[in-house]
């Protein structure tokens, strides 16, 4: 069973209120992972295998094991393809899953949303207020022109 970890210090990531943002600092690529993807990301970087994650998430999500496993597997492959994760050597010990403090509240298994912005240099030239659409940076507004000053 393969397990994974973050590819190196050039991959910065943070979970902000259910959205995981990841930047590959060497390639200059920005990723946003939402839906159930943010939970899956956390379990993956904690060193769990796809099977272990599917088993664990099945306890608290309303979905079939098959659907969960397919979503976890697909995200893990995408993250490997984009070199954000690397496979661990055999015997790596994962961070234990958190122990639920009370009764488990089951919730819907939200679809994984994985977005990728390949030109961070250009995105960082945008003015995050005026050059972006309503969903905010890094989504560029139609007609916005990048300027070196970011204005």
């Amino acid at each position, binding site marked *: 069973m393969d397990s994974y970890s973050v590819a190196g*210090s*050039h991959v*910065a990531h*943070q979970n*902000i*209120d259910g959205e995981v*943002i990841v*930047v590959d*600092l060497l390639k200059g690529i*920005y990723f946003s992972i939402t839906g159930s993807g943010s939970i899956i990301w956390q379990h993956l970087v904690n060193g769990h295998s796809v099977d272990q994650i599917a088993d664990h998430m099945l306890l608290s999500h309303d979905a079939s094991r098959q659907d969960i496993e397919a979503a976890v597997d697909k995200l893990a492959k995408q993250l490997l393809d984009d070199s954000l994760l690397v496979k661990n050597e055999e015997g790596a010990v994962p961070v234990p899953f958190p122990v639920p403090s009370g009764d488990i509240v089951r919730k819907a298994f939200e679809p994984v949303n994985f977005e990728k912005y390949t030109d*961070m240099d250009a*995105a*960082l030239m*945008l003015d*995050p*207020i005026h050059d*972006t*659409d*309503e*969903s*905010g*940076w*890094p*989504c560029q507004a139609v007609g916005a022109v990048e300027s070196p000053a970011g204005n």
Partner: protein
Amino acid sequence: MPIDPPNLLALKAALFPKEEALEAWSRLKEVFTIDDVHPELLALIFSNLVSWLEGDNLFGKLKGCHHYQWSKNQFLRYQLAQRLRLLNQEDIDVLLIGDAPVASRYFESSGARNLGHFELFVPREKIREAAALLERSSRADRNPDKHGFSISLRSNILLGPGRDQCLWRHRSRIEILDATACILDPVDQLFYALLAINRNAVALWIIDVLMVASFPELELNTLDQRAHRYAVTARLKDKVNFFYSQFQPHPTVPALERISGLKVDASELLEQCVFGLGAFSSATLRFATTRLRQLKKDKAVSQAISD
């Protein structure tokens, strides 16, 4: 420059507990536009209110400001770590001052505070070596100023012989990716934050001061002694008074109350008259321009102080 009404409301939205913060945000949107607010405050408002702003018409813009700053900060940290590694390899101790330690240690999200400019404080006897290393790495880098990266090197902070030793003594170690550096302990960091006021960005200064002053590990009982030892009591009181004239924190902050009540030594007043400059010197070397010339100047300043 006093804080204008939109930025005062933005400060409350960024710093106050939920109810008061939401009220300030709502008032801000009603009377002003986000163009009236410092962009860094928008990132901090997002950070403070993220769980309660779903459905807000400006949620996307606030989130964008935060994520933009977070992303930029990651690149800047990466560039900083590259420089620190060089200094680590040569066993040059580095004390990070300025924006980096404040952003790294005192803010919950690394997108909430712009990293901006890096200031490295190194022992005086190592400054030439450090300058040469950094200059070499800057030359080797195809784009050394990428994302606004800039770095300064300092060999002294406190005015007065031997006083900088105290800063080194109380330092704590942090890791920036795979490099290590030291930062000031919370009490010294609070003093530094208070005294390094930027009159053109008072709102941002208030945030820094508040974040450090509210830090749980700040040892209140060492404040008085340390302020007297550095001979900065009068200046600290002056800054705290200015702080309160601009912003009333909620709830009150014991560290600032304590500084406000400090007694100023006569010897400190005398010393200030002698030096005229105040206790924190501004012998900063900017790397972008005329490094060596400034290096000599810095040494001359330090020498003059020691003499």
